[in-house]
C-alpha cells in the first residue's frame, strides 16, 4: 500500500503512476511475482517482499545461487510470514519423537512431507540443506512422494529449527500425526512386482524351450532333448505355480470360505487343472503339457492387476478432521503458555488462537475479537464476528488478532467432529465397491456355465469314447479360464485411471470408475465448489461522477481493510486526488476530506448518519457528500459453470446443498434450470441425510464438495468427489479428487467413466468368441499345446490392444487429454 504523503501533489501522482506501469515488467528475482512499487533490491536484483530477499540472502551467503541457474524464479510457492512460535510444539520431545524415523540421541532421521515441491530447483535446494546448516548431514528428496528425508544431529539443531528453516526458504512441511495419512503413502506392492518378475522370467524360458515341441511333429527332435526340455519346463513352472500364482489360490480360498465364487475361483481351478494335467503328461511321457500357457496367463493377469492398482503416491484420500486440525495448540496455564497435544486437551482449558489458527473444539470466547471463517466447516462464505461470552465452533479459522477461548467440549465431542460418529462412516466403501463390481457378477455366471458345459461334455464322451473324457474336460477347464474377462476389466480400468488422472481427476481405486458409470444424480456444494475464491463486486445506489469515484478510490487506497481493497479493485486504476484529511476508525470505516467534499466508507451506521439504508447484505456503504451507494461482494461462480451445467442437466438430475444463505438463489436457479433442487442453510448432517434419501429412492448419487461440512455427504454418496485447487492440500475423505482447474471437463470425465462399461462389454464379446473357438476344439478332445499356445497370447494381446485403444479413443471423443499435461518446470 502506498503511504499518503507520496501522492499529495499532482506532479508526484504522475511519477507514482509511471513506476506502477514500468513495475509491471519488474519481476521478483526469487519467485517471479510482480514487484509493484516495492523497492527491495540487492545490487541489480529486485524482490517482491522481504521473505524472498531473505531466502536470496541465505542462499547467497552459502554460495548456493546455483539454485537460480537451474530455473528462473524458482521460489514460486508463496512464502508466508512465519509466526515465531508456530512450531513451538516440536520442542515437545513426545511429539517430535513420533516424527523421527530413527534417533540415537544425537544422529536423527526424519521424513517430512513438503507439498510445495514442484521443480528441479526445489530438489536442488532441499538436497543441499547441509550447506545452510552443517548440523544437517544429509537430505534427500523423493520427488514423486514430495517427501524429504533429513539426517541431522539433534544436539546441534532441533527438529523445530529444521522445520522453521524449511518454512523460511519456502518449503513449509505438512506435519500430521494421523496414522491413516501415512499408511496410504507406503510404496506400491513390491511383493506383486517380484511375483511378476519371476513369472516373466519363467514364462519367457518356458516359451523358448517349448518351441522345438511346437515346431516338430514329435519325431524330429531327439527323445533325450524332448524330455530334458519338459523336465526343465516343469522345474521352471514350479515358482510360477507356487509363488507367482499364490494370490489367486489364497483369494479363491478366502472366497469359498465365505461361500462366494469370486473371480479368482475359476482362475485357481484352471491353474490347478493345467498344472496337474501337465504334471501327468510329463510324468508319463505322453505329452508336453500346457505349462507355457499357464505361466503366460499368470504373467499377464499379474501385469493387469498392477496396472489397475496403481496409486497416486502424493495424494491422500482418507483424511478426516484430524488431519485438518492442528497437532498442538497453545494452552494458557498458571505456569504460562504451553504447547499441548490436541488429544490431551480437556474441557475448561483456556486456549490462545492466533491469526489463521483453527478452533480445536467448541469453545467460548474469553478475550479478543473473534472473526471466525467457517467457510470450510459450514460453507458460509463470510467470516462471522463472535462477541465475548458467545460460542465458537470447532473447525472455524480465526482471522485477525489473537483470541483467547475456553473449551466447553472435548475435541471429539464437538458439533462438527461428532459428524464422524454417524453410522455412514462405519461402512467400508472400498470393500462395497469391490463386491458390487461387474467382474464378480460375471465370474459367477461364467463358472456356472462352464461347469455345465463340462458336465455335458463328460456325459457325451462317456457314451462315445470314455478314454477322451479326461483330455476333453481338462482341456476345457484350461482353455476357458476367465483370464480374458479379467484382463478386459483390469486393462480398461488401468488405462482409464491413467487417462482420468491426466485430465485432473484422481480416483482412489479402479472400482470407483464403475460406480461413476452408474451415476444418475449429481449433488453440488456451493461455497468453494461452484464458487471460486475470488469475488464479484457490484455497487448499487446513487451514481457517482468520475471525480467522485476518484475521491472514493483515493480514500480507499490508503486503508488495509479487505473491503477497501475490494473497492479499489472494483474501481480500477484511477486518478488520485489530494486529500485534506484522512482517518480510519477501527471497526467503523474511513473518513476523508478533500476540499469541500466529504467521503465516508464503512458500516451503514458510519456512512449513513441519516439511517435510511436497508439492512441488506451489502459489504459496506459509501457516501460522498449526500450521495449514498452500497457496495456488494458476492462469491464468484466458476467461469465454466454456465457452459457445463446444461450439459450435465441433460444426462443427470442436479441438486445443490449449500451451507450458506440463499442470497444467490436467483443466479443459481438460472444455472441449474427448472429440474434442479436447491437447498440452502444445510447443516453437515442435513447434507448426509439428503443423499441417503435420494439413494432410498434408487438414485446413484455423486457428491461434489470441498469442505469438512461435506464429509458426511461425500461418505454417504456412491461416489464422493472433492474439488481441490491444489491436490496436495487438505481434502476431506473421498473417493476421488478433482483438480479445480479442470472443473470444466467434468461432463467429459463422467462420460469417459461411463464408457468403461461399453468397452468392457465389447471386449467380453471378443473373449467369448475366443472361448467358443477354444471350447469347441477342446470339447472334441483335439486340444494340443500348440493351439493353446497360439490362442492364449493372441486373445490376451487383442484384448489389451482393444481396451487401451478404445478408452483412448473415447477420451479423444470427449475432448480430453491423452497424455499428462506438460508441467512447466
Amino acid at each position: 500500500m502506498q503511504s499518503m504523503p507520496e501522492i499529495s501533489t499532482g506532479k508526484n501522482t504522475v511519477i507514482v503512476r509511471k513506476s506502477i506501469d514500468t513495475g509491471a515488467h519488474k519481476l521478483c528475482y526469487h519467485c517471479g511475482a510482480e514487484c509493484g512499487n516495492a523497492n527491495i533490491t540487492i545490487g541489480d536484483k529486485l524482490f517482491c517482499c522481504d521473505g524472498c530477499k531473505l531466502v536470496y540472502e541465505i542462499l547467497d551467503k552459502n554460495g548456493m545461487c546455483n539454485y537460480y541457474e537451474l530455473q528462473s524464479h524458482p521460489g514460486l510457492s508463496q512464502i508466508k510470514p512465519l509466526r515465531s512460535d508456530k512450531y513451538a510444539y516440536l520442542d515437545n520431545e513426545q511429539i517430535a519423537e513420533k516424527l523421527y524415523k530413527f534417533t540415537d540421541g544425537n544422529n536423527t532421521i526424519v521424513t517430512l512431507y513438503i507439498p510445495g515441491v514442484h521443480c528441479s530447483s526445489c530438489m536442488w535446494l532441499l538436497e543441499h540443506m547441509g550447506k545452510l546448516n552443517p548440523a544437517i548431514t544429509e537430505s534427500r528428496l523423493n520427488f514423486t512422494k514430495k517427501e524429504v528425508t533429513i539426517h541431522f544431529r539433534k544436539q546441534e539443531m532441533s527438529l523445530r529449527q529444521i522445520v522453521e528453516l524449511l518454512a523460511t526458504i519456502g518449503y513449509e512441511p505438512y506435519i500430521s500425526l494421523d496414522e491413516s495419512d501415512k499408511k496410504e503413502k507406503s510404496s506400491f506392492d513390491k511383493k506383486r512386482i517380484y511375483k511378476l518378475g519371476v513369472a516373466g522370467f519363467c514364462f519367457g524360458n518356458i516359451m523358448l524351450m517349448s518351441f522345438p515341441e511346437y515346431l516338430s511333429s514329435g519325431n524330429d527332435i531327439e527323445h533325450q532333448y524332448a524330455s530334458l526340455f519338459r523336465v526343465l519346463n516343469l522345474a521352471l513352472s514350479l515358482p510360477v505355480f507356487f509363488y507367482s500364482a499364490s494370490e489367486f489360490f489364497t483369494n479363491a480360498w478366502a472366497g469359498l470360505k465365505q461361500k462366494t465364487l469370486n473371480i479368482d475361483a475359476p482362475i485357481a481351478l484352471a491353474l490347478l487343472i493345467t498344472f496337474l494335467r501337465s504334471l501327468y503328461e510329463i510324468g508319463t511321457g505322453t505329452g508336453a503339457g500346457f505349462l507355457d500357457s499357464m505361466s503366460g496367463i499368470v504373467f499377464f493377469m499379474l501385469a493387469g492387476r498392477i496396472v489397475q492398482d496403481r496409486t497416486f503416491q502424493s495424494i491422500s484420500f482418507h483424511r478426516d478432521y484430524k488431519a485438518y486440525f492442528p497437532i498442538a495448540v497453545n494452552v494458557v496455564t498458571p505456569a504460562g503458555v504451553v504447547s499441548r497435544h490436541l488429544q490431551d486437551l480437556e474441557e475448561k482449558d483456556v486456549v490462545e488462537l492466533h491469526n489463521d489458527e483453527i478452533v480445536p473444539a467448541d469453545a467460548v470466547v474469553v478475550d479478543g475479537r473473534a472473526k471466525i471463517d467457517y467457510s470450510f466447516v459450514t460453507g458460509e462464505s463470510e467470516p462471522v464476528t463472535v462477541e465475548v461470552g458467545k460460542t465458537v465452533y470447532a473447525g472455524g479459522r480465526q482471522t485477525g488478532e489473537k483470541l483467547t477461548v475456553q473449551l466447553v467440549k472435548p475435541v471429539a465431542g464437538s458439533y462438527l467432529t461428532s459428524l464422524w460418529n454417524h453410522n455412514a462412516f462405519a461402512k467400508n466403501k472400498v470393500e462395497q465397491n469391490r463386491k458390487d463390481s461387474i467382474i464378480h457378477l460375471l465370474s459367477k455366471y461364467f463358472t456356472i456355465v462352464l461347469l455345465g458345459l463340462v458336465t455335458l461334455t463328460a456325459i457325451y464322451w462317456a457314451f462315445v469314447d470314455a478314454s477322451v473324457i479326461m483330455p476333453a474336460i481338462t482341456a476345457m477347464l484350461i482353455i476357458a479360464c476367465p483370464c480374458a474377462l479379467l484382463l478386459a476389466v483390469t486393462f480398461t480400468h488401468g488405462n482409464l485411471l491413467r487417462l482420468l488422472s491426466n485430465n485432473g481427476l484422481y480416483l482412489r481405486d479402479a472400482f470407483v470408475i464403475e460406480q461413476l458409470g452408474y451415476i444418475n444424480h449429481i449433488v453440488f456444494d456451493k461455497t468453494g465448489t461452484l464458487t471460486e475464491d475470488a469475488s464479484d463486486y457490484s455497487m448499487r445506489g446513487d451514481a457517482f461522477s468520475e471525480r467522485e469515484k476518484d475521491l472514493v478510490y483515493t480514500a480507499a487506497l490508503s486503508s488495509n481493510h479487505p473491503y477497501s481493497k475490494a473497492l479499489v479493485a472494483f474501481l480500477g486504476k484511477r486518478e488520485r486526488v489530494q486529500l485534506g484529511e484522512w482517518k480510519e476508525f477501527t471497526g467503523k470505516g474511513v473518513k476523508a476530506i478533500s476540499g469541500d467534499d466529504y467521503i465516508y466508507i464503512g458500516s451503514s451506521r458510519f456512512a449513513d448518519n441519516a439511517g435510511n439504508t436497508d439492512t441488506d447484505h451489502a459489504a459496506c456503504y459509501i457516501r460522498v457528500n449526500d450521495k449514498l451507494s452500497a457496495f456488494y461482494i458476492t462469491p464468484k461462480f466458476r467461469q465454466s459453470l454456465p457452459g457445463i451445467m446444461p450439459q450435465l442437466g441433460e444426462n443427470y438430475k442436479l441438486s445443490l446443498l449449500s451451507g450458506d444463505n440463499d442470497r444467490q438463489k436467483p443466479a443459481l436457479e438460472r444455472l441449474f434450470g427448472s429440474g434442479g433442487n436447491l437447498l440452502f442453510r444445510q447443516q453437515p448432517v442435513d447434507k448426509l441425510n439428503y443423499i441417503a434419501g435420494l439413494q432410498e429412492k434408487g438414485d446413484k448419487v455423486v457428491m461434489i464438495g470441498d469442505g469438512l461440512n461435506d464429509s458426511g455427504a461425500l461418505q454417504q454418496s456412491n461416489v464422493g468427489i472433492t474439488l481441490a485447487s491444489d491436490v496436495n492440500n487438505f481434502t476431506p475423505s473421498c473417493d476421488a479428487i478433482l483438480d479445480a482447474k479442470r472443473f470444466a471437463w467434468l461432463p467429459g470425465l463422467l462420460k469417459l467413466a461411463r464408457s468403461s462399461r461399453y468397452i468392457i462389454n465389447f471386449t467380453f464379446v471378443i473373449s467369448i468368441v475366443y472361448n467358443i473357438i477354444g471350447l469347441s476344439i477342446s470339447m472334441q478332445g483335439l486340444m494340443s499345446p500348440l493351439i493353446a499356445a497360439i490362442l492364449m497370447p493372441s486373445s490376451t494381446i487383442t484384448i489389451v490392444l482393444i481396451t487401451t485403444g478404445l478408452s483412448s479413443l473415447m477420451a479423444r471423443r470427449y475432448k480430453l487429454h491423452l497424455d499428462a499435461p506438460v508441467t512447466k518446470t
Partner: protein
Amino acid sequence: MSALYLLVLASIAVAAFFLFAFIWSVRSNQFEDQQGSAMRMLHDNETPQTDNRKF
C-alpha cells in the same frame, strides 16, 4: 549336439541374472522415485554423499 546342454544352461543362467538384477533394483528402491532421479543427474554439483555408516 551335446553343445545344446551347455547352451540351454547358459541361456537360463543369463535370464536368471537379469531376474536377480530386477529384484535387486526393486528391493533397493530404484523405482520409488522415477521423476526425482531423472532430475538429480542434471544438477551440476555432485549430490550429497550417502553415508550410511553413521547410522
